[in-house]
Each structure stands twice: as structure tokens, then as C-alpha cells.
């Protein structure tokens, strides 16, 4: 089945995968809500990106680095013991945790660092929460010989000292952000401020499918290698198309990456899993699609966590990578047109799935990815044994060992 279309702004049906429109809108979502100072840089980035996405040399270099540096294709793995435990549909794992630097983030960073190189920008900046995108950005900066500054909330710097040190080893300058709630959203604002002042020589590598146009599209495109590989690997291993794809959603880049090549395959159910934190009814969560409402932040219109006056509120998740009050605009749109479903999984459920995957498959997932695993197990259980699902295992969990040890009351020296 390849017949999923939606009414475009010119009043005709367009394939879902043809969005955003030329101004970066997914329905009412997305767009370019930034200060005038950045408009020229975004226009330039957009036209350079459009040009390079058709440039053979650029594409060849990207492909080569994805194979030889990142280590793609990442395996698709049939999780037999997890499947038996769930007792329903077959569960496959897309192993993005096996990429260089341990997560899907590098796919986007390689692409954007190459963009910077082709655009002649010697300096990159990035924001980071848990430090994964910061590490991936610092890594590609080293690889391509670019100067790199990573903005990180001072709260997060305290919580993620290992990744901070790792970025420093990679030659990046890690800048603590002390404004606002001192977390990811403030780091993103601060990186935008840096970009405003240094647009001439700097490329800003946004780590997720959010931000002003063209970022949501560009990051999605670089991440969609995940879905393209999954489609081919699944056809080889199992035959046909999977019945469902499950991925965790913070900003939503790993989910868009695996969903995108399947958008027009109507038989494939797409499920995004947000962080319900302490529980949706406690307000201590990071689930804007499930429990937030529409607004404008960081350059795009999307679902947000906000109070009754339109102020952005603090989020909570045991997984720092999901701890963001917004979400990519394409997810907001896929929710509204009902092409994807969004659910939320609590800290407790994610921790249980984290343990299960260790014990049953010998795989240490990132706490972010453990959210997808938790819902994937429930979903598989609700389906017949002749069905099959793919869970995007977006990253590995070495970085989360200190958090887990703390929860278990163990002191690691």
C-alpha cells in the first residue's frame, strides 16, 4: 500500500512524505519563528541544503562516512527471548546503539558537519541535554577539523560529567548555560544567540527535528537512513513490511528517522513513545504530544509543555534525552492527521524495560530507548504471533549506568 495522502495548501492531495511545504510548514506546524537576524542564514542553509542534496560528490562523501566512520548499516536484530517474554508479535530491534558514539545522533551530525564544510563554515555550535548530541557534534568536529562549541545547561553539566569530559577530550569547548531552568531548552536558546552573533562563520547543528525551517526537514532527511535500512533489512529477514514501528520521542529525531520512509505504507502503524516521567497526572513529565498544547518555541509551532499563561514549564524524565518541553513539528502534524499514534511511558516502566533487555538479550539500552522498548513489549503482547514490529533502539545505555546505580543504591567509584 502506498496511497497515504493529505490535503496540501493548494487544495490538492499531496503525499505525506512531500511535506513540509516550501516555507517549512507541516499543516499549521513548523515554520520559521525567529528573529530577523537569522532569516538570511536560514535561507542560505535551505538553498545550500537543497543544492547539496542533489550533489553527487556530497552524497558520495556522506555515504562513505556513514559506512566507514559511523559503521552503517546498523543491524536489524530479531529479539527472540524478548519476543517469547512478550508472547505476541515478533520483536525486531534496529540497532542504532551500535553506531560510532553509541546512538543515532551521529547520522545527523555527520550530515550537518559535511554541510558546514561544503558551505565553508569553519566553526560549528551545538546544544546538548544529556550530552549525546554534544558528543556526536564534538566527534564530527574533530573528524572534519572544525572548531566546536557546545552549549549545555549548568544543571545538566553537573548531572552528566562523563559526557562533558568526553567532549573536552574531543577538543570541544563546553559552555555552561545559567539562564532559565539551566537545562536543554536554555542551551538551545543560548546556541541560537551564539548563531545570531556569528552567522558568518558558524553553522549551528541542531540535534533534533525541531527548530526553524529547514532544520526539521534536514535532520529528518539525515536520520531517515534508519528507516530506509530497516525497510530493506526487514524485507530480507522476515519478508514484507513490519506491522508497527515503535520509537521514543523527545525532540523526535530517531522516530522521524525510522518513520519517514514508511509514511506512505498505510499498513505500518507508527507509534511514538514520550516520557510520562512520574506519571501524566503528576505534571512531572515530558510528554507534550500526549499532554501538552500548541504553541511557538525555538523557531517552530508545535506541541509544548506550558502553563496557563504561555510560559514554558520544566519537564521531568529519568532520561535526560527526552527531557525537552517541545517536539518536532512533523510529529505534531502526524498526530493531528492520525498517521502516527503517540503514547507515554513512565520512568518506572522504562526502568523495567531497561532491566528486561539487559537480562533477556544482553543489550544495554539508553534510558531514552528503554521507553520505546517498554511500549514495544506491551504492543507486541497485544498482537498476534504472526505479526511483527520493529523497535528503534536509538542508543546504548553506558551513559546511564551511574543513574541506574544510584537508583539501585550502589556507589561506583
Amino acid at each position, binding site marked *: 500500500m502506498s496511497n497515504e495522502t493529505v490535503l496540501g495548501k493548494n487544495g490538492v492531495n499531496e503525499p505525506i512524505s512531500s511535506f513540509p511545504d516550501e*516555507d517549512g510548514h507541516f499543516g499549521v506546524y513548523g*515554520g*520559521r*519563528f*525567529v*528573529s*530577523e*537576524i537569522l*532569516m*538570511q*542564514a536560514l535561507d542560505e542553509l535551505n538553498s545550500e541544503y537543497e543544492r547539496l542534496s542533489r550533489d553527487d560528490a556530497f552524497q558520495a562523501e556522506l555515504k562513505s562516512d556513514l559506512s566507514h566512520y559511523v559503521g552503517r548499516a546498523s543491524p536489524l536484530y530479531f529479539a527472540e527471548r524478548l519476543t517469547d517474554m512478550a508472547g505476541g508479535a515478533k520483536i525486531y530491534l534496529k540497532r542504532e546503539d551500535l553506531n560510532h558514539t553509541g546512538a543515532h545522533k551521529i547520522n545527523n551530525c555527520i550530515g550537518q558537519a559535511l554541510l558546514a564544510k561544503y558551505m565553508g563554515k569553519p566553526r560549528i555550535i551545538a546544544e546538548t541535554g544529556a550530552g549525546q548530541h554534544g558528543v556526536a557534534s564534538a566527534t564530527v568536529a574533530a573528524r572534519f577539523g572544525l572548531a566546536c562549541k557546545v552549549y549545555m545547561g549548568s544543571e545538566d553539566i553537573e548531572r552528566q560529567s562523563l559526557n562533558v569530559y568526553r567532549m573536552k577530550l574531543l577538543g570541544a569547548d563546553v559552555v555552561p548555560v545559567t*539562564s*532559565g531552568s539551566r537545562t536543554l*531548552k*536554555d542551551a538551545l*536558546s543560548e546556541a*541560537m*544567540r551564539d548563531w*545570531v*552573533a*556569528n*552567522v*558568518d562563520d558558524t553553522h549551528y547543528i541542531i540535534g533534533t527535528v525541531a527548530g526553524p525551517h529547514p532544520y526539521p526537514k534536514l535532520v529528518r532527511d539525515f536520520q531517515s537512513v534508519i528507516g530506509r535500512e530497516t525497510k530493506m533489512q526487514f524485507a530480507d529477514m522476515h519478508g514484507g513490511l513490519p506491522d508497527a514501528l515503535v520509537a521514543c520521542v523527545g525532540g523526535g529525531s530517531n522516530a522521524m528517522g525510522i518513520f519517514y520512509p514508511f509514511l506512505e505504507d498505510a499498513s505500518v502503524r507508527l507509534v511514538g513513545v514520550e516520557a510520562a516521567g512520574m506519571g501524566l497526572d503528576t505534571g512531572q513529565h515530558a510528554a507534550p504530544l500526549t499532554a501538552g*498544547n*500548541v*504553541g*511557538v*518555541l*525555538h*523557531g517552530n*509551532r508545535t506541541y*509544548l509543555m*506550558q502553563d*496557563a*499563561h*504561555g*510560559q*514554558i*514549564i520544566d519537564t521531568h524524565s529519568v532520561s535526560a534525552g527526552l527531557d525537552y518541553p517541545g517536539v518536532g513539528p512533523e510529529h505534531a502534524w502526524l498526530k493531528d492527521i492520525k498517521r502516527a499514534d503517540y503514547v507515554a511511558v513512565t520512568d518506572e516502566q522504562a526502568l523495567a524495560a531497561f532491566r528486561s533487555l539487559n537480562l533477556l538479550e544482553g543489550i544495554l539500552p539508553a534510558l531514552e530507548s528503554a521507553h520505546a522498548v517498554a511500549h514495544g513489549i506491551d504492543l507486541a503482547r497485544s498482537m498476534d504471533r504472526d505479526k511483527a514490529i520493529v523497535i528503534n533502539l536509538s542508543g546504548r545505555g553506558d551513559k546511564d549506568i551511574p543513574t541506574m546505580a544510584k537508583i539501585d543504591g550502589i556507589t561506583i567509584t
Partner: protein
Amino acid sequence: MSRLTIKVKANQAAGRKSLVAYIVAGDPVKDLTVKLMHAMVDAGVDIIELGFPFSDPEAEGPVIQLAHERALRHDTSLRDVLSMVEQFRQGDADTPVILMGYLNPIELMGYEEFCVSASGAGVDGTIIVNMPPEESGVFASQLENHDIESVYLLAPTTTDKRAAYITAQSRGFVYYVSLKGTTGASNLDVRDVGEKLSRFREISSLPVMVGFGIKDAATAAEVAQISDGVVVGSAIVSLMAKHDQDLERVITDVTGLLCGIRKSLDEI
């Protein structure tokens, strides 16, 4: 014609350079704002840009970020800001007030409700920092229906083509952000500003106010020589931060700064 356009045109006709002053409503406390607005007018301010606070003021430098944080510490909401304007209007029917800030609080209130409340309160214009004219379609026409003028920004990076588009959408005046950076940055190059402004003047006859980097009477005078007026923001706001426990002192210092700038503008 709104109070804003009337004031800008009258100043132009009289050869008076416009002095535009920016403060964040509710900084450092809600009670000070209306009093300070009147004091600023007495000190020679022509137009007030009243910032409405947002948790994530993306384009601001540290000084104004902290002002937003101070205002939010006691929950200054958009509704509070509108009632401050209403209160100000009881004592001042002439000075144009422009609300300046980020789109989200307005988006949540709803465009129509905002327009009705703002126009009822006596708001004359808006500057929504993160809403370029491309994204303002529906909202801009609702504002126009309620006689609220949308002021847009020009930047050093704005191309001639965009400048033509932006100045065609902007009402009252156009705000030239004089440097690549956030508010309160220090690297203002007046000659560079002059070159850009003469380019924009060929494109549009809309009056131009210049902001970002205007610190004192001297920079104000330099910049006003090549523009229709200046916007002073961070220089005022940093005085609020300095004496946030002594509100009388805030008023004295702010009016002192503004009187000095007014004097230098009038000497041009």
C-alpha cells in the same frame, strides 16, 4: 491612523528625533511599571516599548534575559501587562505604547482575544521578535482590524529584496537591529549602520528607529543623526537590575539617563 503613526509623523515634521524606551513589564516588581512609564514620558520619551515577559527570550542578551526572569518571578502575565497599559492610559492619552515580546503567550491567549483586549487597553502596536512577516498572515490582519500596528525588524543581514517586503508590511516605523547579536551587545559600528540605512532608504520611506547597542547620550546622538530615532533598552534595564531593592532610585537613574539622551537628541 493610530497614535503611533501620528507621533512618528509629527516628530518627523518637527525635526524631532524619536526616543523609544524599552522596559520589561513587571521588572523588578509589577507596581513599578506604570509609574516608571509616566516618569519616562516626563523625561522626554516619545514611544514606550513595553516588553511582556517570556520564559525563553531567545534573541535577548543576558541583561534583558534577567529582566524577563525577574518579571516572571512574580508571574507577570500577558493579562497583567495589558492591565498595566490600561492603567497607564488613564493618565496618558497620547504616548504610543508598543508591546514587545515573543509570540507564545499571545498564541495561547488566542489572536482575537489578544487583539480585543490590547486595543481596549490602549495598545498601539506590537513587535513580536520571533514572528517575521512571513509567519504573521492571519494575526497581522486581525491586528490591523483593531488598529494595532505591526512593527517589523530589519537586520544587517536582511537582503534588499526582504527589506522591500518587510517595510511594505511594517506599520508606524521599521526597527533596525543595528548589529548581529543579541540585545545589549557592544560592538556598534555607526558607519556600518549608516551604509545600511541609506540602502534601506532607497527601498522605503518608512521611518527607521535604530536599536541594539545604544548605551548613552553619545551613541544615541551619533545614531540619531542617520535615523529617525533610537531605541534604548539594555541601558535602562541594567539600571533596574542594579537597584531592584530601591525603586525610587530606579526611577531617578532611568529618568537621568533618558533626560541626557533626550538633550543630546534635541541638540542635533
